[in-house]
């Protein structure tokens, strides 16, 4: 059996007295594409944010590629990770945000070069070549000197995807990446993700409200409800034949809204 690329081992996240995630256990195989769906407040975005180390976890351990992310091994036991360990393991993960979060004072190209140069230590030439290649791949080769404010939402999000890929992550996280877009711009972003899934061997986790896309894109769909995985399985099983009442209710509500 292969080592899971990502593993949540009894992970709990609380905000004060509110438990957002309750002893989550989840294993994701290398190259697997997982869609996370569920009502708001079900903890689905928190899963991605914990994996990106944007949120601390209260209990449990997260493993990335067999190595603990939130902890490190010390004298045979696990202790909370220090900054150095965190940075080393975190380098495997890339994330695309709902609101893009591009750097507004840098051109599209510079956005994609900044971290490769200053974090990976690539020579400027090489970083620029790679950034240009990635912008070409997301269909923005002609816009590389544009600033984020000169780009549409869909274009900005495609730059954000290129920027994350420039760090060569093994795992890509997509946090409701089309939710802030005008409807007519959603397609171009999904098209890029579709290509990515086909052409690259990336493990992908996607929180989404696009049920149609989740269905065609994912190997597995996880339905979250009140901090737990209420149901998971192949997309056909979840969407065509959900076993749980809560899943049925959620799906019918979402599909009705169109």
């Amino acid at each position: 059996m292969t080592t899971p690329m990502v593993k949540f081992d009894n992970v709990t996240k609380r905000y004060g007295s509110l438990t957002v995630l309750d002893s989550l256990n989840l294993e994701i195989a290398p190259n697997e594409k997982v869609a996370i769906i569920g009502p708001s407040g079900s903890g689905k975005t928190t899963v991605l944010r914990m994996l990106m180390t944007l949120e601390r976890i209260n209990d449990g351990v997260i493993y990335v590629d067999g190595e603990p992310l939130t902890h490190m091994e010390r004298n045979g036991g696990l202790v909370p990770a220090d900054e150095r360990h965190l940075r080393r393991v975190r380098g495997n993960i890339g994330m695309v945000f709902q609101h893009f979060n591009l750097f507004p004072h840098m051109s599209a190209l510079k956005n994609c070069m900044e971290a490769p140069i200053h974090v990976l230590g690539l020579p400027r030439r090489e970083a620029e070549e790679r950034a240009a290649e990635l912008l070409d791949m997301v269909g923005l080769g002609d816009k590389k000197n544009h600033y984020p404010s000169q780009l549409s939402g869909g274009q900005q999000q495609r730059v954000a995807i290129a920027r994350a890929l420039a760090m060569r992550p093994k795992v890509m996280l997509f946090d409701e990446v089309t939710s802030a877009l005008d409807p007519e711009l959603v397609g171009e972003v999904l098209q890029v993700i579709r290509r990515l899934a086909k052409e690259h061997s990336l493990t992908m986790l996607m929180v989404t409200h696009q049920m149609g896309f989740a269905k065609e894109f994912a190997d597995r769909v996880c339905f979250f409800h009140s901090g737990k995985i209420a149901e998971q399985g192949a997309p056909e099983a979840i969407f065509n034949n959900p076993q749980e009442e809560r899943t049925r209710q959620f799906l019918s509500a979402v599909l009705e809204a169109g």
Partner: protein
Amino acid sequence: MQLRPLAICAIVFFTAGLAVASFANFREFIPGLLQGAWITVQITVGGCILAVVAALLAAVAKMYGPLPLRWLAVAYIEVFRGTSALVQLFWLFFVLPHFGINLEPMSVAIAALGLNVGAYGAEVVRGAISAVPRGQWEASVALNMPRILALRRIILPQAFVAMIPPWGNLFIELLKATALVSLITISDLAFKAQQMNQTTFRTVEIFSIVLVMYLAISIVITVGMRTLETVAARGMARGR
């Protein structure tokens, strides 16, 4: 907004009118006053540079530094904001020599005014840094940047744009506060004016010219900061 240039013109013409109306050959005062103005400009420029450096260091130390550094920054800000600039000037000039530290009057002037304005500036810097959207920090984490790198390359350049207008105000405050240095033996513009007034009693001409000179320097600061703001904001709408 329309009132400002009008008011400036009114003041300029009023003072110029007064000077002319006194039928004096007021030109004879100008070389001496310009000497004083040059000293004032030097102190202003030096003080402003020191203020910006001190404010950046204090703000970053207060926000992200380890505990002892944080205390140090808070102490600096509170002491220099909470006491009079004149007392700070006297303290550096008259008290430090008792501890064996003798500084040039010009150094004291720049240090006292720079540190004083820097304490106010620290809050300006802090506000501008906190106003950078959290998503920018999160994107930096997602790109695996160390915190100092993110601060230097991502956060501060964006905060910079927001802090330019308040810095313009502080620089003008500093310019006006330079008049205090005449009390520690420096022949700045205010000192020259008093000196000439005592020997010639041509009060109207002298102080009118001095007024115009201070105003001219502050207009240069205002215009300079506005230009800087336009340049810094070019091509960049503030992101989220």
